[in-house]
Each structure stands twice: as structure tokens, then as C-alpha cells.
């Protein structure tokens, strides 16, 4: 089971959260082609390894935040606010 450190409430069990898939996706202008629009709508990075993703603490504070998590080990490597860029995990 994931133990997710909510930025605002601290560590809680995964069942309190909702997953929001990729972080750092921004909506393109409506003028883009159908291909670019469907890429934005449907495609995810879906990496095997470090994933930058959004979680919402639905059964807690109700806030969204970003998490860097390894999709193989499930280790949580960083937690950071919405709007912040992805952290450099090399440091």
C-alpha cells in the first residue's frame, strides 16, 4: 500500500487519495490540429521508472499536489505544490 505524504496533512494511506495521472500537462491552444488535441486529451507519459504525477487528498484536505514516484518500486521521491516545476532528482 502507498503511504502518501500529503503536502498539507502529512502521511496518510493511499485510500484517502485520488490519482490524477501526469503532472505538468498544459492545455494547448484550441487552434491545434486534431492529432495534437487528442495527444493532449488521451496520451500519458506512462513511464517505467520515475513518474511526475498529481494526487488529490479527497478524503482529507481536498487539495491537489504533485508527487514524484517510481512506478516499479512505488517509492515516493518528492512531493511538491501544484504549479512548481518537476524537481531535479539527481541532487
Amino acid at each position, binding site marked *: 500500500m502507498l503511504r502518501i505524504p500529503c503536502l498539507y496533512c502529512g502521511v496518510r494511506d493511499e485510500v484517502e487519495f485520488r490519482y490524477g495521472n501526469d503532472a505538468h500537462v498544459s492545455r494547448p491552444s484550441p487552434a491545434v490540429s486534431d492529432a495534437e488535441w487528442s495527444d493532449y486529451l488521451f496520451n500519458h507519459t*506512462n513511464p517505467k521508472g520515475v513518474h511526475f504525477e498529481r494526487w488529490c487528498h479527497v478524503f482529507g484536505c481536498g487539495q491537489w499536489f504533485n508527487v514524484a514516484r517510481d512506478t516499479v518500486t512505488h517509492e515516493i521521491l518528492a512531493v511538491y505544490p501544484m504549479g512548481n516545476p518537476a524537481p531535479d532528482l539527481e541532487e
Partner: protein
Amino acid sequence: MKGYSVFSLVRNAFSGHRHWNPVWRTPKLRKSYDIVIIGAGGHGLATAYYLASKHGIRNIAVLDKGLIGGGNTGRNTQVTRSNYFWPQSAAFFDHSLKLYENLSRDLNFNVMLSQRGVLTLAHSHHELESLRQRANAIQINGVDSEVMTPAEIKKLVPLLNMSARHPVLGGFIQRRAGISRHDAVAWAYARAADAYGVDIIQQCEVEGFDINDGRIAGLQTTQGKISADKVSIAVAGHTSIMTAKAGFRVPVTSMALQAMVSEPIKPCLDTMVASSAIHMYASQSDRGEIVLGAGADVYTSYAQRGGIPLLEENVSALLELLPAFSRLKLNRQWAGIVDITPDTTPIMGKTPVKNLYISGGWGTGGYKAIPAGGDTMAYTIANDNAHPLIEDFGLERFEIGALIDEGSSSGVAH
């Protein structure tokens, strides 16, 4: 291929079963093939078999980084049904069920198909209404489907607790649906494809593609470079990783789907029972184990293990509906990585790279699709043109907005 029969069984019994032939060869990877299929799961193997048997193409390799059927094909809960809501899905999956009905004979290998019926329960009046609508849609699709009253259900599955917290108000059943033996399906196709000369290379991982002018030329593997006229991807949970190496994205999220089995007990459950509302489905295997399936952990994962919260939810759902199982011990619990599409319909057909094909997005329900998946992909690869049954399953549907939303009409993962 030496056929299996009662005579071969008797003959080999006399020599103490020491002289059975290997079921398939262990060939060395050659430098060049007409067609290379990535992934020796059910889909890859069936595609190779139909390419050889129906289209006369024999110079084929099927490569797997692991073992034959060691992926989701050997990890699933074996539900084989065709009661789908949308006409395209019903036509495709019923073709598959029909192929399953003759598969043991066609491949001379017992896949242990047991058409014991798949019963889906309704626990509220709203659910019963939508279930009736589904049952009607399925009948209009030409697939068998019957609505059942609580009394009929209780008679069919006496162990069911009808007045649980979520009481059983009705249900619908596809009687032709059932289960079959997953390993046998992989082995049967592997043996039959091998007999046509298809090279099945195990422990050979594909690491990249050689693409010239937008057209596939070959592959890089852990056993060296090879050239190929056509390549097809059938790697389930690793679909997006493979396509990224070929330079394009696909709309899948990889998640861990789990299942579990209890210790074996005497026969007591001869129907597959499913409930979307409280999220569980269960059947009893030929070995007597209760096979229990749940949903996928709802976050991206490549860890082949299932989370504990879902396991708990699943077991409590089982015990609520079938309380007689409360003393059973769980023997095993496991997970496979499934690639889930936004509409839970597979992605099949051509790709942006010429002569590169894809059969993926099988998500939580591609076991039942193996025969039809193989048949239609073989046609598609041989003719470089989508088989009529899978015309609507192509990658382009996301761009034109022609999704086939089975997710909302099927609910439970199987």
C-alpha cells in the same frame, strides 16, 4: 506435430511417459524474418499461428523477454465471454468465443473450455434497469443474454447471500460464457505455431527498432540485431514503452491488476458470479480453488504485485455475497501489468510506422480475445489492411473522437 490422442497416451504409458517429444523446439534466433512478433503471450502466439495456418507465411519469429505465456496470459482469471454492449465489440468477442468453442479440436490441445455461464448481479433498482438495457443490447447484437429473477439466481447459485447489505435484486447471464485454462491456450498456440516452423525465441528482449524512411527495417534485441519486413507489437502492459521506441505515443495507462485463489475445496460454485457494484467476480477452478478477481490499483504501476487495499475490498465483497467462504485461506495473490485505454477497447491494426502493427490496450479483458485477436491481426499483417472486425479499433479513433466506450457498459474488470 505428433497429435495427442488416447492411443498416444496409452503408447507412452507403456514406456513410463519417458519418451514424449518436446512440445516445441528451442530454435536459435536467425538474422532475418518476414514477420517478427514481439511478445509470446496469447495474442502474439495466436497471431503467428494464424499467419502460418491461414496465410501461408512460415518465416516468422515470436520473441519474448520472458517465457511463453509468462505475462498476463498466464496470470488472468480466464473469463471467456462475449456479452458486450457495442455492436463492434460484440461482433469481435463473439467471433472469439466461437473460435474458443472449437479450439481444443482445432489445435489438438485441451484448453478446458467450460461454458458454465457468467452471471452478473444487480444490487439496486437503477442497476437492474441498466442491466436490462445491456441484456437487450447484447441480444440485439446477436449474442445470448438472459435476465434472471432473484429466485432463478438463488436456484443456480445456492450459496449466494441474497439479502446482503447490497441485496441481489436480479441479474443477467450469458450461458455460453465461462472459463478455460489460460496456460493451455498459450501452450496450444505455441505448439501449433511451432509445428508450422514459427521460431519462438524465449528470453530475447526487444530493445529498439530500425526504421528507414518511416518504414520498419529491423529490430535490436538482447540476442543481436535482426531484419524484418513486418513487425507486430503484442506486449500488453509494456505497449507504450515499445511504441515510444518506435517514435509514437499510445493512450494507455499501465496498472497492476490483481487476482487471488483460495485453497482447494469440493465443487460448490459451478457458475462464474460477478458484481460490478461491489466489485468482485469469482469462479471455482477445476482444481477446486476459488478464483477471485478484483480491479486494478488505480495508479500507474509496473510492479507485478497488487496492493493490499484492493485485496481487502475484494475479499470482503466475496464474503458478503458468498459468506460460506469465510473460513477459506488464500493460497496465492498476484498481479499483472495491464495497459488500459480511455474507452477500455483494444488498440489494433496499423501504426504511424509503415509495416509496424499493434495489438495492445487489452487492459483487463484480453484473454477472451486471444483467438479473434490472433485471427484478425494475422489478416491485418498479411494484407496490410485492417480486418473488417477490427476496423473501428485502430489508433486513429482517438483523433476522430470515435471511442467505443465499453468501460462504462462493462464495469467489472474481466
